[in-house]
């Protein structure tokens, strides 16, 4: 899932300071799970904004909505009637949702209310860790299911580096060394031989280094 954090309230208030009526649009997908952009987050943020604006002596009207997913036209098309009456959309979906909204409704400005951070999952309730960097060429098969691209600060393919100490990364003592995890996992699986093979430099063209990526599933295309 995509994990995002809410922007500081000062930044949000500043970005909507010239508007008197906005739509606050959440998303029922990933950001609902990470508590930053679901229906409840919409209501809470709307409440904060209305209170802050009332204090400033310039009340604001807010249309609250949370489409099933803000990253699909089918769902955001349902908002088009409401969109006609607002000055701007404050979107607390991930960056994908914000862009889908602004591409589908180009006459209305869409402002992001979240900072989209990473792809990961909750390692415990309400605590998320990054797990995938979307590099486009998965290496998990020979790393025992631990991703060195997402979890090693240096993205090493032949780790660990000299900064690994007591299983932790030199970048942050609270972060596990990905290569220590890889070693431990492979040892448990009896696959330490995987580490004897020197890995060639990664072809980063499958990642974001070659510009925007696209993918399609032809059989399903209309």
């Amino acid at each position: 899932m995509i994990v995002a954090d809410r922007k500081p309230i000062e930044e949000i208030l500043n970005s909507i300071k010239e508007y008197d009526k906005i739509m606050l649009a959440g998303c029922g997908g990933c950001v609902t799970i990470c508590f930053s952009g679901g229906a409840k987050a919409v209501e809470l943020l709307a409440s904060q904004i209305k209170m802050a604006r009332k204090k400033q002596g310039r009340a604001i009207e807010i249309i609250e909505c949370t489409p099933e997913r803000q990253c699909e036209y089918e769902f955001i098309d349902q908002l088009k009637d409401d969109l006609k009456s607002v000055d701007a959309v404050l979107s607390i979906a991930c960056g994908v949702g914000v862009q889908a909204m602004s591409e589908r409704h180009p006459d209305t400005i869409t402002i992001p209310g979240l900072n989209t951070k990473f792809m990961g999952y909750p390692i415990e309730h309400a605590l998320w860790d990054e797990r995938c960097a979307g590099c486009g060429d998965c290496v998990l098969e020979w790393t025992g299911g631990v991703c060195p691209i997402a979890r090693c600060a240096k993205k090493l393919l032949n780790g660990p580096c000299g900064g690994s100490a007591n299983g932790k990364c030199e970048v942050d003592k609270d972060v596990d060394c990905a290569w220590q995890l890889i070693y431990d996992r492979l040892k448990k699986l009896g696959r330490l031989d995987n580490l004897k093979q020197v890995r060639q430099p990664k072809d980063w063209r499958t990642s974001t280094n070659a510009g925007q990526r696209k993918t399609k599933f032809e059989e399903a295309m209309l």
Partner: protein
Amino acid sequence: MSEFEPKIVAYCCNFCAFAAADLAGAMRIQYAPNVRIILLPCTGKVDALLLMKAFEDGADGVFVAGCMEGECHFVEGNIRAKKRVAYVKRLLEEIGTNPQRVEMFNLSSAMGGRFAEIVEEMTERIKELGPVEADGEKGPVDK
């Protein structure tokens, strides 16, 4: 400011604070009439949104009153409420509203006197702070 009579909303657990309020009444204990009591099955029912909406709709102060820690009828409802109250304190602070306007209290159903004390304590605190609009203005910050 001495004439200011704050509106205070009290979210009270059915098993302790609400019964304590009832007891305070039965004991004929006088306390400030500024409080509006809302009965909850457990303070675990309290959501950050409930607290924020009270402020949005004109409350000057809000408190949540639950069972003593370790004595919740639903094991940890009051512990959850405590976290949510702390969260709402942060949300209020972010928009320049004094976080002291929201508080969590713990008491038992036998503590009628304590309930009256809590109401007095909150009423005095909010009277000192003044109306919610009086809190320092915190406008948008130009980046």
